[in-house]
């Protein structure tokens, strides 16, 4: 299983790719594997602001609903609406076309508090 080293991770299994003030957020390959077939993704509208740890949506597999949590505080600037009609595309492509939202970060420097790929990988092995 792959975890890009240029991304940061949370213990709730989200990844974030920070470029300047913008962060792109998704769920990890591990989360996708645990969920199984993904059948529905509920995402917020652009313009909404969240604190770190807030639930910004849900991801559903055939059997379960899981909350999606903000890795960092920020305002939603873009939403991957393609996932609405094709949630299954998250499988196998979670780090590129499987992105969920883009956010404008309140404090880009907070990213240092998240896990790096190595720390995340050892977390999921616990």
């Amino acid at each position, binding site marked *: 299983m792959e975890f890009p080293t240029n991304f940061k991770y949370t213990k709730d299994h989200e990844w974030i790719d920070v470029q300047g003030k913008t962060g792109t957020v998704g769920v990890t390959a591990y989360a996708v594997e645990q969920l*199984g*077939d993904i*059948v*529905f993704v*509920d995402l917020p509208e652009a313009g909404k602001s969240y604190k770190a740890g807030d639930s910004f949506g*849900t991801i*559903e*597999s*055939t*059997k379960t*609903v899981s909350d999606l949590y903000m890795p960092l505080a920020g305002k939603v600037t873009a939403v991957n609406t393609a996932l*609405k009609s094709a949630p299954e595309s998250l499988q196998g492509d979670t780090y590129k076309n499987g992105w969920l939202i883009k956010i404008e970060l309140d404090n880009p420097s907070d990213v240092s508090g998240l896990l790096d790929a190595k720390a995340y990988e050892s977390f999921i092995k*616990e």
Partner: protein
Amino acid sequence: MADVTAGHRKTPLYSMHVQAGAKMVPFGGWLMPVSYSSVLGEHKAVRQACGIFDVSHMGEIRVTGKDAARFLQWLTINDVARLSAGAGQYSAILNTAGGMIDDLIIYKMGEDEFFICVNASNRQKDFEWIRDKSRDFQVTVTDESDQWAQIAVQGPHSLAAISSLLQADEAQSLKNLGYTHIMKSRLGGEGALIARTGYTGELGFEIYLPAVSAPKVWAALHELAGKHGVVPVGLGARDTLRLEACYLLYGNDMNESVSPLEAGISWATKIDKGEFVGRNALIAQKSSGVKRRMVAFTMTDDGIPRHGLPIVANGQRVGEVTSGSVLPTVGGSGGMALVDSSLADGGTISVEIRGHQKLAKIVRRPLYAARTK
């Protein structure tokens, strides 16, 4: 992390599931495969070809003795007198308030002998209820659950798949076996039983095997992957398949406070057959009007309905979702709900999903027309 799997029982096929890479989950006191590769893929395989399911967790109770037929006629809701030897029927046992203790299938094996298949999670409760109620009858009630493994073989290719493992005489009998009937078989050795029934809405069979024969029969069926498209199927797809066919799941769709009239199985409730446990309560319910009804619905808006979510109509709470999911063959999502009787004839409702009212419509049951016959 707490080991949620500790203390759960394993079927005789457990190690084969693990070896096949199945995701194992606790279910009804057992550790069962929820999926081997993909719930949606397994669902599709059953609709189009053939799936094999380990359902060894189900309970088996035998009732024998000269009063067996009379006893079961009094204990269960369906008409046992209609059964000839080798025939079975869907039925239920009720408490005196008319609530469902369990739903089950009763097979008549001989004049004074009946074989009952019950839900895994209710096995102990059912056995004690049946045994305690049998005191005034000349019958013997035996919990045989530990002796039996059970493999369900479901899908349009199921008959061909099983037949290829049978000797010619038995293959012929299987072909002629009527829906809900049961036959003895030498599949995997002596002492197997094959019933033509299932929980998917497809042509299918449930094979009862002495626990020791189960692994080799499972392996032989699994080897038919190339020839008949046989794939192992977990509880995940078992649930989406049965939901499309609108078969009830005990604990989700009904429990001891839901009557068979509310649950939508009036067709199996033979009130006119004579006295049976729970009948008076059902008669009272009928005369005052059944307040709730089981309906099927499909979502108009986005969102997946789940067990326990509120159903709203005209601003009023009118019931709740008992089972909900994506509907892989039907398309979209939907499920079953127990709602106020005024809605039983159809209409527009909303399902409250995480505080949002999502539109849905009540549709005719089943969501997927069964091809069992």
